[in-house]
């Protein structure tokens, strides 16, 4: 892996979980896109990943913002910082 492994148990849990989306956003923290756009990069449709995106917003890894009628998903950098900080 090309990035620091998260030291917190929460971060490790996210990475080791089945959440490809969580790992995808942690590896690519600069992604700012709609569900459709994120899905396209994973070879999936927007609806197929929407509920998982909402779950990641719920746990605070992602933020959701509205812009010009689009619902955008982006990483919560404060949360990312806590996850990847070494103890």
């Amino acid at each position, binding site marked *: 892996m090309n*990035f620091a492994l998260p030291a917190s148990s929460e971060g490790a849990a996210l990475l080791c979980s089945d959440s490809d989306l969580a790992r995808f956003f942690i*590896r*690519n923290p*600069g*992604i*700012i896109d709609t569900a459709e756009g994120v899905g*396209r990069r994973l070879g999936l449709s927007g609806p197929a990943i929407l509920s998982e995106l909402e779950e990641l917003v719920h746990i605070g890894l992602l933020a959701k913002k509205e*812009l*010009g009628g*689009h619902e955008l998903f982006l990483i919560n950098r404060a949360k990312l910082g806590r996850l990847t900080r070494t103890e």
Partner: protein
Amino acid sequence: MLMGGFLEKDAVMLAGSAGAGKTTIALQYLVSGIQESNEPGIYVSFEQLPDQIYRDAKNFGWDLRKMEEENKLRIICTSPDLLFTTESGESILDFPIKDIHPRRIAIDSLSHLSMFAGEKNMRLETYRLISWLKMNNLSSLLLWETSNISGQVSSITDAGLSFLVDTIVLLKFVEIDSAIRKGLVVIKMRGSDHDKKLREYEITSKGVVVSAPFSNYEGLMSGNARRVAKLDQATQNFAEAFSRKKR
């Protein structure tokens, strides 16, 4: 070549075909801004994922993740249509701008934007984008992929965007003695003088290095490079040939 560098808040188009080094130059532009001028920057990609960009940049010794952690850089990956500003003037770039207050931005690439905007709307959308960038005090590097790998280029873009930007730098592959070499030339630079020569450049382990102008060749831009002897050497050869005594 630029008589001191790009002018502040200028929109610079960097045009070249696939593999010419546009992305490397764009990253180097941002990294130099951070390391030499303390100017934070944003890199906007529509195709390459940040993870890949971090990996490729490491080859040049640039730790982009660390620069992001220090809030000096943001590598943004989004869909092209989201870059168009809304009717209220909001932009997806508002998020990273609030984060790090950048002075530079590189957009990779306008060619991707044109696929979404369509030929008719591309000029208007590019004009709006450039105006927005200048209003937000950003010096921009806008990448454009040309279709010709080598040979004559009759227009930089096929969307009529050349007049919208302040500076155009063209990257070209040239064939000399059966080898492909890389050359760059400043086509235009509003408000400043600039080098008119086609110079060779190389992508090294430290990034792009520009060297001397191609000498002894003409026709490089047309794709038909021809070796040309230097005039003074030709004159000397002529004089020597006619001064030899006949046997």
